[in-house]
């Protein structure tokens, strides 16, 4: 591997340890917030994208990336925030989805399965992260954070968060 490739792998590993402030079980790499890492003339360029326009976590994430890089003695870097292409749950890693499920949050379905625009059209069934049953119902389209909806399982009665497809 060239020096630059080594650097990029190293930086990716460092960033992979930064937890998302609102979903601390996931790293910002798992969530797909870190879009790209490049090294040009010794300057590390890190491209990040917010999940939702109003996500309050993005400023904290920005700060944590800077602090982490400084702590690892990486001084020459540039943080770029891009909005396009817009963030989608498709960018979440498979291990990230499994982690969500392990912690009681139903992971997002693949994009084409939902995002139904017809009114009162039910989204595809979401499996309860506790008992696995598909006999669940939506309580509210909006949940504890912008990226989640509230559901309840009709079988085991567990209320749970569903990470909306976006």
């Amino acid at each position, binding site marked *: 591997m060239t020096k630059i490739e080594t650097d990029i792998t190293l930086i990716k590993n460092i960033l992979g340890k930064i937890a998302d402030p609102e979903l601390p079980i996931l790293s910002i790499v798992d969530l797909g917030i870190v879009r790209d890492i490049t090294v040009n003339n010794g300057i590390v360029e890190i491209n990040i994208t917010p999940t939702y*326009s109003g996500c309050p976590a993005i400023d904290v994430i920005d700060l944590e990336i800077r602090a982490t890089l400084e702590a690892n003695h990486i001084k020459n870097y540039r943080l770029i925030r891009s909005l396009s292409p817009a963030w989608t749950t498709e960018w979440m890693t498979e291990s990230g989805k499994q982690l969500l499920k392990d912690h009681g949050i139903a992971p997002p379905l693949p994009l084409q399965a939902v995002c139904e625009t017809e009114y009162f059209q039910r989204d595809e069934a979401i499996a309860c992260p506790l008992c696995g049953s598909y006999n669940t119902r939506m309580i509210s389209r909006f949940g*504890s954070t912008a990226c989640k909806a509230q559901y309840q399982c009709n079988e085991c009665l567990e209320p749970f968060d569903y990470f909306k497809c976006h």
Partner: protein
Amino acid sequence: MLAYVLHLADNALVAGHRNSEWTGHGPILEQDIALSNIALDLVGQARNLYQYAATIANDGSTEDSFAYLRDAREYKNCLLVEQPNGDWAQTITRQYFFSAFQQLYYAALKGSADKTLASIADKSLKEVHYHNKWSAEWIIRLGDGTEESHRRMNLAVNKLYQYTGELFEAAHYESELVKENIAVDLRTIKEDYYENINKVISTASLPLPGNTFMQTGGKTGLHTEHLGYLLAEMQFLQRAYPNANW
């Protein structure tokens, strides 16, 4: 260009601020959270737009100075979004009339020759789909609900319909940018807009408002009295304690 970006930002900020007035006052917890989330999305869209406006102005203006240090006459939002919350029916109707507009508007703005506006539109549109669906479903549920909910929805629709006309009147700062393929040509989305909202109003078993006088002026700074009160509350802290930070 600056005026145009501020107009888009003001629309999102004022709509978002109105919804945030419900935070802690929603009829049930889930709907309180829903309105707060919609407010968060809209204020987030406004931030992206104000940040872009600050780079265009390039005179030391910031997203905060645009939001907190301009008076009502400098605000370019449409009259619809500044209308008071009223009861639940009025809040929902205002949100639906606005979301239905934003949905078509951002979809068109995605094709703008200005790459920054196109990417903000792309990002925002995904959020607006949820707002539109949520508010339309409430209109249908309540319009087609009890005698009382039907009566209130009917009042709200009739009260706010007169502010929809302005959405399609191009301000002087828009016309030039339409030629350059930067701003959205409002004529291209008007027909779809009324078709969409009329369909929802009919499904809600509410009578369609007839041809009515349309109020205009907000986009060029001539507002209803309500915006002044909204700004007084929103800007109080920065006016009383300049540069306060937390």
